[in-house]
């Protein structure tokens, strides 16, 4: 056992664990988080996905001692009580059926849009490919991601027109 310091959703936690423990079990069982979930333990399905320094990472196979960056979980997506636009789009498009995989879908989509804010349909499919859903909500997920992409495009457009008006 050894004491490991983890930065999760902006707070620092110290846990006394076997350093080889996969991050998933520490997040769930020591820190009480409910977003990342066990799906395969093999890094194949994405249900356990968290974001570490901007990258979507499978926490089920990652030894906790190997983590050095800032960890964001599903619980950390909302800011100041406001849902992340992807979470809102997930509600607007009524994406989940059972919902068990949706942590992985949302966190993978978040990392995708952070790296490419206006993906094409093909880029959405490619970027999301590793996140499995067995209720087959894929079509709804694509609609939700496109909704965010098109809303942010609209937001940019409005920003631009505001600026023009201000200049006038």
């Amino acid at each position, binding site marked *: 056992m050894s004491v490991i310091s983890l930065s999760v959703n902006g707070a620092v936690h110290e846990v006394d664990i076997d350093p080889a423990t996969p991050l998933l079990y520490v997040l*769930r069982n020591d820190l009480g*988080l409910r977003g990342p979930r066990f799906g395969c333990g*093999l890094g194949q399905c994405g249900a356990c996905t968290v974001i570490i320094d901007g990258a979507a990472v499978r926490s089920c196979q990652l030894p906790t001692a190997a983590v050095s960056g800032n960890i964001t979980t599903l619980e950390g997506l909302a800011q100041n009580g406001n849902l992340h636009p992807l979470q809102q789009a997930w509600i607007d498009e009524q994406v989940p059926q059972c919902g068990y995989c949706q942590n992985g879908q949302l966190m993978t989509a978040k990392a995708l849009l952070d790296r490419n804010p206006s993906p094409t349909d093909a880029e959405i499919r490619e970027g999301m*490919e590793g996140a499995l859903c067995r209720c*087959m909500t894929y079509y709804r997920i694509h609609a939700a991601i496109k909704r965010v992409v098109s809303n942010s495009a609209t937001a940019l457009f409005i920003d631009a027109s505001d600026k023009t008006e201000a200049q006038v």
Partner: protein
Amino acid sequence: MSTTLQLPQAIEAALQRLNPSTSRRNFLASSGALVLSLGLGTVPGARVLAQAAAGPYPDPDFLQLDTWIVIHPDNTATFFVGKTDGGQGTGTAFRQMMCDELDLAYEQTSLVMGSTDTTPDQGGSGGSDAIETDGKPMRRVAAEARRVLLELAAERLNTPVAQLTANNGIVTSTADAGKSVRYADLVGGKRFDVALTGQNINATTGTAAVKPVQQLRVVGKPLPRYDIPAKVDGSLTWAVDVKLPGMLHARNVRPPVAGAQLRSIDETSVAGIPGFVRVVSSGNYVAVVCEREEQAIQAARQLKAEWTPPAQAPFPASNDLFDYIRSATPTSSEEPQVTGDVAAAFTSAAAVLEADYEVPFQGHTAIGPAFALADPSDNQLTIYSNDMKSYGLRTGVATFLGLPRDRVRVIYMDGPQVYGRTASDDVGFEAAFLANELGRPVRVQWMRHEETAWDTKGPAYAFKLRGGLDANGKLTALDYEARAIDYAHLGYNEPDTVLIAQLMGRRPTRIAEGGAATPSVKYGIPNLSLTGHVVALPMVWETPLRTGNLRDPDGPQVTFAFEGFIDELAAAARRDPAEFRLELVEASTEDNAFRRNRSLAVLRAAVEAYGGWESRPAPKQQTAGPIQSGRGLAYTYRSNTVVALIADVEVNRDTGHVWVKRLVCAHDCGLTINPMGLKHTIECGMLHGLSRALWEEVQFDNEKVTSVDWATHPSMRHSDTPESIDIVLVNGDPNPDRPDLPHYGAGETSHKPMIAAVANAIFDATGVRLRRAPFRKERVLEALRAKQS
């Protein structure tokens, strides 16, 4: 002991609304709908219920109105129903149905589902019967509550019931709008104390009639599902999230090959693992128990045990499966269902077609492996589970462990998908057994390899079909013969057939014969023979190839064969596949045209929604280049719901890759409760069917299942998703405006014809008929090349 547990939000919300008044406590103490300790008025709701854990847990009495509906002092209501919701939005639909009958706004209500000590036993989920069957008593008891409230209001307002109207939980005099009273002021926090009647829970009723469809206001609205926000913001407490003081973690160790007998366990191989508690074994069931989850996972991997393999191979390898099915002696055979003179019709047919169809074992393979947590505190047993049949789990576990039923309860919470008889049954018994052994709460989750390999399988099928056409291309004879591996088909929560019971050596006194299904033919086929045979694998017990219900248990298999073959006949007759089917439906004479009219309406709606349907036979003219496109139609009935589905595919001739680019679905399940929830259920049902069409197949050698993860058992992914999906909701009832238009089920019908629609589309695109699912690119390419050579 269990004072810190976390409960479903619905239960918490319901309890937190409770007014700790004397009357409220009296209600709770005596109703049986909720079991609460007295004198805990200031304790937050979750803890109130937790402290009631001491039990016993009698069955909520479905013949008491108070069991179903509680009106709170703030003029809101909580509904208690004995169903579960696997994410299809049935909970939202139940609220809509009950709101309308009770004249409450949707926002004024909440719903508690599926926990055996707080909700009446409606059996949990299954058979797509939530709306069709269980929604009826829900509507009737809500109508009865409204009747009682109006009578109480009549007394209070000194106004005849006939002059009263109710809206949003307020009763108002139609003669004097100044005279009104809230439901809460009539029964808020108190009992209704109204007895209901009914020989069984489905027949439960009061004396009030439900409203005619024309008066429903909340029903029919596309209200968003109440459970979704907490599923996307991380705030939902899932069954897998429950933590109890003193809780241990267990993992199973399965026999390395099917039918192996445990010889010995070397406990020293895991004794050094920190947190190791115990190895538990009974017969061939083995589990390791540790303080922490990752320790239990490590121990399960590390445990050394010696096993004796069985003398005979438990099953043929999956590559030899269909030869085995065709050559095995059936364990049972159905009498053929015959119409007309089939032999004579074949003799006089101008053309006779024959085809063999095959569907392998397919699994549930939930995204989250099976889970349960059992707490033996206070000499009771509480199981936290997402089992869709929580009531059966409770009864089965009580029998399995020899406990009185009222000392066992199941708290139902959200979990991964439950499309049929999943391993959430098996794991509930395992957790209960281990908690009983250890005397502490035990949390068990299966590993991926167990979920994929040991979860129950949908039966594998081999079909033989013959069809006869006359000189005009009319279908005059059809002979259908199915063989299914379905012997010892597992029921739900049976204490003598769950996996742990099998491994412990328990055997049922009567083995389920299983069944090989025949299609529900709504076509007018003058000479028709339908037969089914069941065959068994060499090993019946302690095998990973256990058959049980998988979403629409036999439908996708049977419909693939039947609607695929109808498509072959249409092509042979050089007829347009939609027109060929429409004529066959028109020729049907059964049931006063009820099914015929609805089938015709749905088939026509699908073709219309498709847009620009060109009347022509399949296959389409091939084009240059590797990508060939085509369309495929399939139609089917399930119970009282009818669906027609059209798939547009693109097939890559060079690689064999199939992409279903577009889906069009016309669907009639009678009265729509929530069109948005319904469409999403239809959509995901289709895509689940698409996964079975394109990918899913359980593979095995002749001693173990070799499909153990997502690499060896692929499932549909994002890249397989269609570009567009169009769903049309049809009301094809011969009397579409009738005030009692029924609401039918929708959880499985759109799933059913998908394999057939894809196969028919691949034929249209390429001229190659695929008669064995799934259509992975290697198999498609092989078929394309076979046609060329």
